[in-house]
């Protein structure tokens, strides 16, 4: 075999490079959400009374329930990565499958919340608080959907016998992405539901 001269032929180097690439992507994601966090901060300072009165209209119980769902899904990802590091592909498929299901549960709860807001006549155009609420949870929801797709694809690849203890880079990097989705929600819960 004639290996290319760069270090990426070395599987260990390739893995480190892929991981660094994913962290770089997460850096751009921080700034994507960062624009909305900046808007939130500015308008919250400008209209504190509005934020205080409007945030009480959100369903704090469902927001908390969804936090439990996402944290649990993150644990499933950790256990899935741990499983394939020990070469247990079947176990990985179960854990990542569970994560996809928990992502679906999250979206259903989110749907119930949004439907409730619409029923009460609260739309993105109602005021700046609800504009930010729908933008931030909507952008986060898109990330949940994309993450579910990536995780499901990893399960499909694993079914085809692609991963082992020696090679499982896609498992690790999709896992990192899912934890990031969890991280964003960890901040959305207090900002939107708890302190407005």
């Amino acid at each position, binding site marked *: 075999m004639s290996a290319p001269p760069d270090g990426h032929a070395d599987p260990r180097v390739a893995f480190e490079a892929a991981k*660094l690439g994913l962290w770089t992507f997460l850096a751009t994601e921080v700034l994507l959400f960062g624009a909305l966090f900046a808007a939130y901060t*500015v308008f919250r*300072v400008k209209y504190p009374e509005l934020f205080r009165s409007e945030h009480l209209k959100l369903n704090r119980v469902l927001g908390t329930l969804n936090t*439990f769902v996402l944290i649990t899904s993150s*644990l499933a990802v950790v256990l899935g990565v*741990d499983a394939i590091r*020990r070469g247990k592909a079947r176990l990985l498929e179960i854990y990542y499958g569970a994560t996809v299901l928990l992502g679906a549960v999250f979206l259903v709860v989110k749907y119930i919340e949004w439907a409730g807001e619409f029923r009460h006549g609260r739309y993105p155009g109602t005021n700046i608080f609800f504009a930010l609420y729908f933008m931030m949870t909507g952008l986060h929801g898109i990330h949940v959907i994309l993450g579910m797709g990536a995780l499901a694809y990893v399960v499909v690849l694993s079914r085809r016998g692609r991963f082992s203890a020696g090679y499982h880079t896609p498992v690790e990097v999709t896992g990192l992405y899912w934890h990031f989705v969890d991280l964003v929600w960890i901040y959305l819960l207090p900002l939107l539901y*708890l302190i407005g």
Partner: protein
Amino acid sequence: MSHETTGDRRTCLAIYVALLLLTVVTVLVSYVDLGMLNVVVALLIASAKASLVALFFMHLRSEDRLVWGFALVPIVFLAIIILGTLVDTMLR
């Protein structure tokens, strides 16, 4: 880079329980009126949870300095964006 052991799995379960407990605490605190302190407490708890997720679930604690740099520098930029925008709009 070390492979996970049963001990690491136990650690992650402990982190999971800590994350759930911190969530319960931050929700309970939100029902108590502490004035401006509510914001401080909520953000401190959120940051503690985020740190636990990054360090243990994302394995940041066993990463080298290059990955740490890629993880921390965006937070610095985020702070610049938020503070810069805030200063600009408040002094207008």
